[in-house]
């Protein structure tokens, strides 16, 4: 168990920069999720930590050791691959024993460790089988076991659940989280699935196009996104973004969009005024922080329902307000009385409004 520090990591492949100037501080025993869309550099970062890729610039510290020049096996990290990477010609027992065998651990000790891990993961019965005889979920556990058996300082997991069907995935998420807490091993978990990230992580590092966007707890990321990328990546349906201009009306600072005016809450007026670099801003608000009314209510904006998506437990309405289309949850109470084409009114929850600057998408409030 060790802390991990990444300083100014840069990794290029030919002309593309996969990871650019990444700085990350990971505490001992925490589960950090590297989250981001495909190709954003999170797997590359993981592989640099593992030692499978060599950084072009920057430093990687595991504990108190600079590991840049160390081979994977000397770094004392273990990795779980998306494809599990189980050796097809070896039994499960041998798969689990292999890393220990390579580490020249005596046979008796290997046996003890393998059996212990197998029991922990509930795969004790499968030790004589070969990987192809196992189900996806079982293979996944073996992959985990092969990493655990080494008792490393750091676990690296590269989208371990993406090849599992949805139902099992929910179950495995909880199991991995519990396992990690029990073992207390520092874990870095890569995924593009934001739900996985939000449910499992102690902290999330959101990476887009090789750059770290935000590093914080799931609720931080969700409730205080650092920029529009973060705001729209996490949360489903994604945050609504409304382009607006900062204007002064009746002596009050307001945001104007599509013919509507949003009066800035007095709490944030001052900050907005100070931080706004220009007058072009973006207002962000999550679907669940919008309220749908069938009648005009004070402070609400008129709109027309263009699409309704029924998600079973709830519905999402796409309401055209001004030039924008806002996604908004249809409350159960209104239920079926909202139809496509209806005229409705939308109001904002003041406390949940985010304001970003338009140029860089950075949060102001």
């Amino acid at each position: 168990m060790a802390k991990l520090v990444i300083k100014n990591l840069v990794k290029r492949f030919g002309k593309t920069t996969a990871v650019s100037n990444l700085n990350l501080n990971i505490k001992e025993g925490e589960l950090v999720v590297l989250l981001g869309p495909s190709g954003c550099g999170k797997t590359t970062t993981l592989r640099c930590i593992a030692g499978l890729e060599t950084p072009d610039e920057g430093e990687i510290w595991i504990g108190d050791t600079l590991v840049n020049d160390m081979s994977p096996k000397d770094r004392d990290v273990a990795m779980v691959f998306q494809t599990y990477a189980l050796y097809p010609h070896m039994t499960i027992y041998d798969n689990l024993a292999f890393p220990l065998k390579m580490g020249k651990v005596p046979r008796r000790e290997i046996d003890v460790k393998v059996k212990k891990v197998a029991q922990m993961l509930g795969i004790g019965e499968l030790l004589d089988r070969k990987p192809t005889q196992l189900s996806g979920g079982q293979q996944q556990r073996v992959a985990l076991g092969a990493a655990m058996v080494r008792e490393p300082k750091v676990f690296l997991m590269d989208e371990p659940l993406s090849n599992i069907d949805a139902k099992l995935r929910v179950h495995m998420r909880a199991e991995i989280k519990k396992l990690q807490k029990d073992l207390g091993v520092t874990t870095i978990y890569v995924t593009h699935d934001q739900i996985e990230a939000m449910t499992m992580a102690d902290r999330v590092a959101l990476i887009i196009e090789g750059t770290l966007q935000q590093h914080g707890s799931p609720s931080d990321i969700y409730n205080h996104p650092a920029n529009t990328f973060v705001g729209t990546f996490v949360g489903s349906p994604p945050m609504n973004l409304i382009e607006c201009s900062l204007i002064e009306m009746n002596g009050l600072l307001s945001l104007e969009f599509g013919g509507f005016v949003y009066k800035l809450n007095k709490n944030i007026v001052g900050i907005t005024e100070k931080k706004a670099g220009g007058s072009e801003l973006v207002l962000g608000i999550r679907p669940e922080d919008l309220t749908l009314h069938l009648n005009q209510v004070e402070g609400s904006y008129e709109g027309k329902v263009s699409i309704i998506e029924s998600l079973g437990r709830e519905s999402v309405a796409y309401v055209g307000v001004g030039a924008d289309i806002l996604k908004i949850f249809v409350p159960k109470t209104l239920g079926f009385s909202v139809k496509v084409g209806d005229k409705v009114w939308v109001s904002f929850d003041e406390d949940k409004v985010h304001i970003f600057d338009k140029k860089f998408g950075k949060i102001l409030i």
Partner: protein
Amino acid sequence: MNERDISQATVRNLIKRIAGIVRRTWVHIFLLTLGFVVLMPFLWMITTSLKPLELMRVPPHLIPTHFYWQNYAIALESAPFGRYYLNTIIVTIGIVVGQLFLSSLAGYAFARLRFPGRNILFLVLLSTLMIPIYITLIPSYLIIRGFGLVNTYLGLILPFLVSAFGIFLFRQYYIGFPKDLEDKALMDGCSRLQIWRHIFLPLSKPAFATLGIFAFLFAWNSFLWPLIVTTDPDMWTIQIGLAMFSGRYGTQWTYLMAGTTISIIPAIAIFIILQKYYIKHLALSARLG
């Protein structure tokens, strides 16, 4: 459509199907006959080898009335076929094992390791496949002679210890391996060579079978090289032994055919056992060509 039309249609279909079966049967008959014709020299060889010398010209009965195994004993005695067999077996094993082992190693390097000059080296290797033996024959002989390896097993084996074809084959085979397995092995503490030993090698059985049979046939049927590298009859391989035997007993076919039969049985046996791999490889090359 009334019932008569329907039954007419069914009859027509039936006739078509029967015609099809008849046509196919004729083709089968032709192919089987041709097959018989193609194998006839061997059938003649076997039946002649089992007849007493006096009857060697008489057309064979379909089933020999008497199996004259003595011919084989005589053949084995008069020319030391046993000795030739032994030499050939040793040389063949040496060549096959060498090629399998070294091709797997080199194929792995070309497929999975990054090193300077890899692509150029591989192209050079590939180009050697097109080089006819006649331009390398004399110098190879002189080199072997220079090393004092004439009339030795090593002299017979050494030039063929490595096969560019084999390296190409293994490289193709290994290129398809999932990269994750290697990464995992690296994480597990394997050196590059250990990755080859613990992961690639155990999973190479089909490639071994394929190269194995090609190498075996090449080594077993080899004639020109053993001919010039062995002057001592004790070191002759079975092909040389057979050729010389043919010179001496040219007209005594019964013994000659016995000797020939002995010489081709291992090749045919190995082929029949491993033919799946040989033919699969040919078919694959055909499609890629």
